[in-house]
């Protein structure tokens, strides 16, 4: 299982990365893309939308099923990955390079409340 050590994770299989400019990039984990199977459709949040931590804000649909994506932390959506919308299968190929959206966090310290790679790996192992 590919779980990069430099990212933060949620119980619901999103990853979050604090960027140098203070924004937070969000995607789904390699474990999540594997469990979903072939991804064929992404619905991403509108830029400018304010989301709460744990709020449903995107949908990833595989051939098999639709899966809700929850925002790891509170903030404002500042970008959505339209390239991934046009080629959703890229998320299967590399779930960490092909992010879903970027947030301007309400409070960057909220990231500290997320799981680290070791803790997430344990959770993913059980699912």
């Amino acid at each position, binding site marked *: 299982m590919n779980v990069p050590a430099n990212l933060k994770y949620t119980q619901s299989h999103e990853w979050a990365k604090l960027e140098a400019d203070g924004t937070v990039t969000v995607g789904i984990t390699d474990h999540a893309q594997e469990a979903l199977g*072939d991804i*064929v459709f992404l*619905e991403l949040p509108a830029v400018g939308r304010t989301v709460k931590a744990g709020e449903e804000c995107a949908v990833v649909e595989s*051939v*098999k*099923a639709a899966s809700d994506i929850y925002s790891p932390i509170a903030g404002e959506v500042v970008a959505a990955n339209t390239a991934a919308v046009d080629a959703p*299968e890229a998320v299967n190929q590399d779930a960490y390079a092909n992010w879903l959206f970027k947030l301007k966090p309400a409070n960057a310290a909220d990231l500290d409340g997320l799981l680290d790679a070791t803790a997430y790996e344990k959770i993913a192992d059980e699912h």
Partner: protein
Amino acid sequence: MGKHTPLFDTHVAAGAKMVDFAGWDMPIHYGSQLEEHHIVRRDAGMFDVSHMRAVDVRGCDAQAWLRRLIANDVAKLTLPGKALYSCLLKEDGGVIDDLIVYFFSPTYYRIVVNAGTADKDLAWMRKQSAGFNVAIDDHPEFAMIAVQGPKAREKFWAAFPEAKTASEGLIVFQAAAWLSGQDSWLIARTGYTGEDGFEITLPAAAAAAAWDKLRAAGVAPIGLGARDTLRLEAGMNLYGQDMDETISPLEAGLTWTLDFKDASRDFIGRKALEAQKPTRHFVGLLLLDRGVLRAHQKVVTAQGDGETTSGSFAPTLGQSVALARVPVGIAIGDEVSVEIRDKLLKARIVKPNFARHGKGLI
């Protein structure tokens, strides 16, 4: 833990992702459902369908009983090995199951029914056999392998050259027995994908070796995930999803399987169907907006609401399609809306036949 087919260990060794299907542990895919789908449309793939149940019907009343039991008419089967698709109906016209029945002689037929309904079907058949001279024997011990795709027959013959003589003359929906050593196999030119191919019934003990031989001949293992998208593209109904005991075949796109020609044939459910005036009909939907149609979404039309019964991304088309029941006033070509996560997306009503023989039909 669910029930295992004779190929369970083979699937696990091949890295299949196993899931529960009607109480059976079955492979959903072996890596990529999409790739498996394309392999069947373009080349040849094989499915373990051993969870389905073969039921032999023998006796001097076999034909008369089947003409009463099922809604299609077995009297039109005269060519040995020829088969037909039919519904098994309740008295009120609800669908107990859908099945294929093979004709060997007027005193010997074989029925193949769905896995999830097999026990219920058998109980119903036995109950309905009172007063008829028939013996009903099911064969849960048989394995079944469906080899499907434009190159399926060719690759099957490459794996089993000795079977070619017995099977090369088969027309669509016809089966023939083939003697493999001491074992008698049944080779049927049937399937559930919209592609050419065979469905092979063989003893459980021979299944793993046959699977390996087919694999060596270039036939790829295909999971139930691709089986579902293939049958959906081909516009074939799935029991329990597109129809069930509460749904009339007249509202499930199955009118073509009901044979009313012989007015004296009193098949179970006939009277109920003749009195019905369907208010909905069964159509295909092509999603025009971006998204994925799924079962049980609301279809909003100018004549009232309908509902999707099966839906998915259709890999051959690269677009999403669904089967749906909509008000009878809605016609092919009409534009409707489908409610997905509180949004209304545009879809067009089309014939429920989206892709077959390697090509999209829309």
